[in-house]
């Protein structure tokens, strides 16, 4: 039905707080991606799931970043002990399967760390 949804749309966190960002992919989409977009930059890859398996987490900037997709549908990106450099828009995208090139993006969560 609907496209990719993300919540919250905006999050303000004090430095040191933990945050959790949610992504609801398009129903039935196997592949799910998280990207980070800093101001004035293009989206940069963080991590990738195929169903519930996290197949690539090479883009996660530090061990403070953790992502999960336990039932192969909804995914959560968690950032522990947030720092100012974590301020960015976090985008989630899904695609039909591993062989699909086109990824469909959600509106993103804008995280501001003060």
């Amino acid at each position, binding site marked *: 039905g609907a496209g*990719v949804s*993300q919540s919250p749309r905006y999050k303000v966190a004090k430095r040191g707080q933990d945050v959790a960002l949610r992504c609801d992919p398009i129903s039935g989409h196997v*592949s799910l*991606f998280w*990207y980070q977009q800093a101001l*004035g*930059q*293009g*989206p*940069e*890859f963080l991590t*990738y799931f195929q169903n519930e398996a996290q197949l*690539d987490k090479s*883009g996660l900037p530090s061990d403070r970043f953790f992502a999960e997709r336990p039932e192969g549908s909804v995914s959560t990106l968690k950032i522990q002990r947030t720092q100012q450099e974590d301020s960015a828009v976090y*985008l989630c*995208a899904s*695609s039909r399967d*591993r*062989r699909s*090139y*086109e*990824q*469909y*993006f*959600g*509106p*993103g969560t804008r995280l501001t760390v003060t």
Partner: protein
Amino acid sequence: DQQVKQNSPSLSVQEGRISILNCDYTNSMFDYFLWYKKYPAEGPTFLISISSIKDKNEDGRFTVFLNKSAKHLSLHIVPSQPGDSAVYFCAASALSSGNTPLVFGKGTRLSVIA
């Protein structure tokens, strides 16, 4: 080291004229290229794509050209309309190598002036 480069941060075009957005890449493993359009406070929206086995793909007012030898692609919009005003991202994938994440350029902001 940027693998996908959009060297023009912005472009202004008069309504009705052609808009040409350029993109260069460095990784010869990329085999699929996509253009995304992004409005403020929304996620990127897929626009058009091209496989490396082709040199042109057309969809309505949008045409993408690929020059593999030069590692260069361009997006042509004709005629340009005010609603085309947005940030356009070029993205590349090396899916045949098993790398599914998209690698994005920094984007070009297109302004179509009525």
